[in-house]
């Protein structure tokens, strides 16, 4: 299997996460406390730029079959999984991507208890797979997109997402100033 692409993609991702400071606990938990909107800024920029780059190239035929990598939508599971994830993120102050950035910058807690936690979580999921799979059956719609549902062009949608995220970011930052 070709390893050059995943290693390069990972390198760029890990480098950026660390440079933004997201390998640090405080940057992650302070987003949930709205004391530091760095994570929001990082994610919104990644979504907007990623979408523009992706659609610019896929429109001229550079992307293979999207069904190969498009996520499945299953309302209960996506929401519930996200909620369990959110509790873990606020407790741990990290997530699956930022833990690797943290390990790279020398966080020994991430390398020990953190990695052990992820492996244990994966084992619990694997052992109880039939049960967890049943959670994905409620409201299962498969590989759908907002474009397919609404009939609105993907460029209009990605620009709408970019504009909306700018508004949310402005709003959240204004609220923080009042607080402090």
């Amino acid at each position, binding site marked *: 299997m070709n390893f050059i*692409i*995943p*290693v390069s*993609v990972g390198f760029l*991702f890990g*480098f*950026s*996460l*660390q*440079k*933004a400071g997201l390998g*640090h606990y405080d940057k992650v938990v302070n987003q*949930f*406390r709205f004391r530091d909107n760095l994570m929001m800024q*990082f*994610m*919104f*920029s*990644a*979504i907007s*730029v*990623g*979408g523009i*780059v*992706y659609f610019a190239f896929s429109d001229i035929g550079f992307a293979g*079959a999207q069904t190969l*990598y498009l*996520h499945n939508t299953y309302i209960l599971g996506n929401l519930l*999984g996200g*909620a369990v*994830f*959110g*509790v*873990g*993120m*606020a*407790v*741990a*102050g990290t997530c*699956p*991507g930022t833990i*690797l950035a*943290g390990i*790279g*910058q*020398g966080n020994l*807690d991430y390398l020990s*208890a953190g990695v052990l*936690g*992820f492996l*244990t*979580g*994966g084992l*619990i*999921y*694997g052992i109880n*797979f039939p049960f967890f799979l049943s959670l994905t059956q409620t409201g299962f719609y498969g590989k*759908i997109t907002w474009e397919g549902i609404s009939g609105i062009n993907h460029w209009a*949608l990605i620009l709408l*997402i970019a504009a909306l995220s700018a508004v949310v970011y402005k709003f959240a930052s204004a609220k923080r100033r009042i607080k402090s």
Partner: protein
Amino acid sequence: MRVLEFFKMKRWSGFVAGSLTGIAAALSCLAAEKVMGASGGFESCVSILVSLFNLDISRTVYFIRVKPPVADYQTLQFIGMIAGAFLAAKFSGDFKLRWFPDKVWLPLFGASRVKRLTALFFGCVLLQIGASIAGGCTSGLGITGVFLLSPAGLLFITGVFSAGIITALLIYGRKY
């Protein structure tokens, strides 16, 4: 010279670092037809370990077909991520061996290593179970899923932020 200084900067803004991450995520879809993510890599690691120790559970459908015991795309991506973060931290002098976070955690919860490792362990267990149920994590669903216009991405982010804010309120209480 200018370029070198840019790489030595201690912090890049979320706009710069996030935009680069967006390019990496788009490249992953375009060049490899794979999603840039991390939670799937941990699932593969578990499968490899389970098969290495020849546990009974390794002979179930999940560990044979759903997550076979091979170093897949995201596992290889881990190598790049750790190397990238290591170099970034080395460049700016942010690299340091540390057992717990000196900001927010230390002043609020003290210097107990057991306390930090216990909280981190259980937090990470929940992170992996949640990501596996949802079908991705902050990068896979939260970034790539949203820009591919999948409703799953938005549902996931809604779940993460609602539960994350409530949990932070409970943990920090009056210090929220």
